[in-house]
């Protein structure tokens, strides 16, 4: 569960973070497709290591309404036992082998995709063993019912614990408000977890973990032919196709509503009130992507220098953290802003936040705010690609969102081309105060 939440945040950061370069970024090489799977490589030779991210089109958006949590459990139990024609391994043997190799293999799930991340030394003997193990984890999980039941207990315990935490309760209610009946609006609950069985997991795996739903991104010390072989090894035991998958519903634009319909208050006896505000917005390939992310830097994405931070924290001392972001993906993602403040200041903080966002949508950034945002994004571009991990995030995001392979090379140009009018008109086109859902959690004073 923790990893799930982190992945979402990471997604937001990554999407802001797609960049490119004043000096040429290392080229992204596209490998030959194999069994419908795609793969991309950035070759970096300075360190004897390899980072891989496997994206599978098997995120929580595919959870059936009655089985919320299925995508997460299917992914998280991938490495809890393997049974294949060649090798059977218990969860303990898998964990010991990963550790013996000095490798990291981790699994995460976002709304759109399941993710397997592998980090290992590039020495061929170590690398090959890690890849073989990852192949089995991806394609041949056991989903033993004893382990499934144990993990259901753990996930339920984690959920009950999370329900005592203000940020979790707020986030769950906010997502429901924004996503409505779209699958991502459904929350994982103790009850929905209780209803999952080992055969549900097996079936979900069979249906969604197919080579034609996989993208492999690699960064590190391997050449193109080695990378091609690695990708083929990883997916070779997956079926290429399977039973048809019903299309996802369209995520509708958040409707215009009266404040009383849009605002939800949740009594909660924390010392701080937690506030979330937002609505559905854009997908990553939207032509207004650049005006929106440059504008959002000025509004609430630019850390200490954003307008929200200035109004809420610097001028009034109302909160430690206040932010806004767009989280676009393959599909329409959300815009969200948020803060936390002591309960007796909640109304004031919400007023300041509302006024600040409203002003920004109405009038856009000032020219100096826009210039500052562009200066930061352009001058800071090299920091977004200065190690293998960051490069991998970028390559994987470009691949997942189907963006041009030269996205990193044109990124600063695209930022630089954004005008004040474009920001203003894009914010007005996609955001509107009378469509914003507002959730306020805390003790009323």
């Amino acid at each position, binding site marked *: 569960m923790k990893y799930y939440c982190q992945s979402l945040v990471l997604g937001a950061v990554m999407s802001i973070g797609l960049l490119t370069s004043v*000096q040429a970024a290392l080229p992204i090489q596209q490998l030959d497709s194999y069994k419908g799977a795609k793969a991309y490589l950035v070759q970096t030779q300075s*360190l004897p*290591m390899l980072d891989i991210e496997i994206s599978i089109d098997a995120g929580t958006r595919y959870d059936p309404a009655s089985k919320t949590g299925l995508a997460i459990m299917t992914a998280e139990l991938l490495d809890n036992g393997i049974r294949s024609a060649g090798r059977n391994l218990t*969860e*303990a043997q898998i*964990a*010991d082998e*990963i*550790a*013996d*190799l*000095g*490798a990291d293999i981790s699994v995460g799930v976002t709304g759109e995709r399941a993710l397997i991340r592998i980090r*290992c*030394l590039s020495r061929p003997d170590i690398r090959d063993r890690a890849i073989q193990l990852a192949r089995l984890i991806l394609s041949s999980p056991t989903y033993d019912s004893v382990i499934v039941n*144990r993990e259901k*207990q*753990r996930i339920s*315990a*984690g959920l*009950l*614990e999370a*329900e*005592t*935490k*203000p940020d979790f309760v707020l986030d769950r209610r906010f997502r429901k408000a924004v996503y409505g009946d779209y699958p991502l609006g459904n929350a994982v609950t103790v009850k929905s977890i209780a209803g999952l069985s080992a055969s549900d997991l097996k079936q979900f795996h069979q249906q969604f973990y197919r080579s034609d739903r996989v993208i492999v991104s690699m960064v590190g010390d391997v050449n193109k032919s080695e990378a091609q072989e690695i990708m083929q090894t990883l997916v070779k035991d997956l079926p290429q196709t399977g039973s048809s998958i019903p299309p996802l519903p369209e995520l509708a634009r958040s409707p215009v509503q009266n404040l009383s319909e849009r605002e939800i208050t*949740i*009594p*909660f*006896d*924390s*010392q*701080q009130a937690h506030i979330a505000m937002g609505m559905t917005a854009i997908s990553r390939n939207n032509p207004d992507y650049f005006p929106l992310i440059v504008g959002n830097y000025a509004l609430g994405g*630019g*850390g*200490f*220098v954003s307008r929200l931070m200035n109004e809420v*924290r*610097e*001028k009034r*001392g109302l909160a*430690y953290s206040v932010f806004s972001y767009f989280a676009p993906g393959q599909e329409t993602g959300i815009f969200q802003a948020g803060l*936390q*403040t*002591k309960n007796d200041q909640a109304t004031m903080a919400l007023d300041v936040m509302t006024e600040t966002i409203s002003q920004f949508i109405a009038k856009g950034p000032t020219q100096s705010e826009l210039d*500052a945002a562009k*200066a*930061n994004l*352009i*001058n*800071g*571009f*090299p*920091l977004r690609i*200065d*190690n*293998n*991990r960051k490069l991998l995030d970028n390559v994987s995001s470009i691949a997942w969102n189907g963006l041009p392979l030269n996205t990193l090379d044109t990124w600063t140009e695209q930022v630089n081309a954004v005008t004040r009018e474009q920001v203003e008109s894009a914010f007005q086109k996609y955001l509107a105060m009378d469509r914003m859902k507002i959730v306020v959690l805390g*003790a*009323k004073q």
Partner: protein
Amino acid sequence: MRYSLQLLFFGFWLISQLAWGASAQSTEDTHEYLLSNGLKLIIKEDHRAPTVAHMVWYRAGSIDEFNGRTGVAHVLEHMMFKGTDKVKPGEFSRLVAAEGGRENAFTSRDYTAFFQQVEKSKLSKVMQLEADRMVNLNFDDADFAKEIQVVMEERRLRTEDNPDSLLNESLMATAFMSSPYRHPIIGWMNDLVNMKASDARQWYQNWYAPNNATVIVTGDIDPDKTYQLVEKYYGGIRAHELPVRKPQLEPEQKGVKQVHVKAPADSAQLVMAWKVPRLQPDNINNDEPYALELLAAVLDGYDNARLNRTLVKQARLADNVDAQYDMISRGPALFIVGVDLAKGKTIAQAEAGIRKVLAEVTDKGVLDSELKRIQTRLLANQVYKRDSIFGQAMEIGGFEMAGFSWKDLDTVQDRMQQITSAQVQAVAKKYLIDSTLTIAILDPQARQSAKVGVQK
């Protein structure tokens, strides 16, 4: 006693260096300099990408605080963004942002550090800003009044509404009677409420000086040019006498201590913490701290490590486990084992479960295969950590602040590879004993949310 000797030595060394002027020591990619004002500079070249991390570390953290003014090190960290004679409040962040920089700061028990990450040609700009606020910080009382509210919100967010933090805070305050490690880094709320701008200013005047600072620059840099920049911007700042640090040694513990914390939560938690030795800068060949690090990893260093395997997967006593030990610190070290209890299990059962896992180590030792696994992991991490210039600067800073040298990093790695199963067994037997044990228990309470609704 050892601690005070170390400080005396430090003082003498400083004076002798001041008399000699700048000096330099280098390895292939790492270079150390001492400016005549006492500022230490460490440069680590890494030419993988055209970026740099620039950090200044002050050897002043919550360990240097006194009761009634706890949290002041962290509050001053916040105030460092409030302007100097030349740079208006908030301007520091704006100028760094304009250069495309990322910046922030952090306070620990042992130190306070500030950093910027920038494209390499911007290094001079951010260094100029950082050097300026080492000596020219100038904030008014109104700025302080607003910022202390922000810090109180930070405490509400991170601690008051967070049962894990509340439990940890009580654990530290119970384990330590006298050591300043008993205070939370962010400070007690009552001390924040009563803090004055003058407390923060005094802290600044006491500890923010070149002779209490280490500048670390990692990344795509030329060492000579970088040294010249540092000399230009920091070199003219005058050293001043630092306050005397009294040892504040923790008295010997004479038996088990226990604390119960009631807080909104669903699962009970049990934490067991033993006082254990840390690595001493003047005794870096002492194997015990290394053996304790490996013991923590054998217990919780990978998914099938002993605590997870036994308590979570087999016995179902716990839903999560944790073992921690950090041998590098200025103050006393704890070896900590914690668990979130599984539903229907009692604290007594969980404690018995932890003790059983530990008894297996003390009775039978650990397997060579387990130890080898951990040591392999450590070797691989040596490669992985070079992926981040920020991480490399962090590692150097943590070592230096605890009184070690970056040159000790290799020694530490080498020693870790030499530790035997018998040594791990020996430290478990010697140090995980009841007379130095503190037990902290989280007693979960239901949220009174419904009642809040009614009150409204």
